[in-house]
């Protein structure tokens, strides 16, 4: 399941949905949150823009790629857009597999590709009221190397 939405999500509901499938032996989930500090500067809130249409296509493609590499029985990606406050949930990735190895690896793979391929952009409002588009991080690009 893939969702791009403004509203928050409930981890318990998402987890139970993954758990309801048969033959599941492992569920690995990741949640990304709005941090109150970025590159040493205090952040007061965040807005997230995306490219409607391409975003959903891109996330479907990332899951398809992951399914070619690992045994995935069920998966969920939820990414929020719009205005978000500190500590709010931004992204949820849940992978259900027969075994934990596949679930761990697939969850990390999905996040690494989402961070570098999916058309989302963050804009931070700093404590002093100034706004700033977040720059892409080289570390995120390097993280892809382990899947080459």
């Amino acid at each position, binding site marked *: 399941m893939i969702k791009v939405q403004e509203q928050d999500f409930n981890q318990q509901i998402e987890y139970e949905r993954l758990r309801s499938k048969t033959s599941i032996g492992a569920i690995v989930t990741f949640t*990304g949150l709005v941090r109150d500090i970025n590159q040493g500067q205090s952040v007061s809130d965040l807005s*997230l*823009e*995306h*490219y409607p*249409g*391409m975003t959903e*296509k*891109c996330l479907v493609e990332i899951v398809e790629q992951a399914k070619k590499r690992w045994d995935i029985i069920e998966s969920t990606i939820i*990414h929020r857009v719009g205005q978000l406050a500190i500590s709010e949930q*931004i*992204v949820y990735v849940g992978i259900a597999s027969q075994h934990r190895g596949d679930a761990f690896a697939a969850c990390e793979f999905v*996040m690494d590709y*989402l*961070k*570098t*391929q*999916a*058309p*989302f*952009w*963050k*804009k931070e409002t700093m404590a002093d009221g100034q706004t700033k*588009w*977040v*720059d*892409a*991080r080289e570390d995120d690009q390097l993280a892809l190397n382990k899947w080459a």
Partner: protein
Amino acid sequence: MIKVLFFAKLSEQLGLRELQVAASAAENTDQLLDYLKQYDPKWEQVLSAQPCLKAVNQNMVNHNVPLNSGDEVAFFPPVTGG
């Protein structure tokens, strides 16, 4: 016509999210970018100043791609979701 979209910092700096360009103005994505840069000195500056990714018909491409009428081309900064 070719539908051109801008996102994030790029659309903010250009003051525009979307425009239509005559298909005759650009045979490929490189020509389209050159055409847009010539539109205005400010556009030249904005579109040259930063790494600019592109997608054709909602697929990211990193090389020059031929264009046809009806195509959707998007230009945007490196992505920062997650």
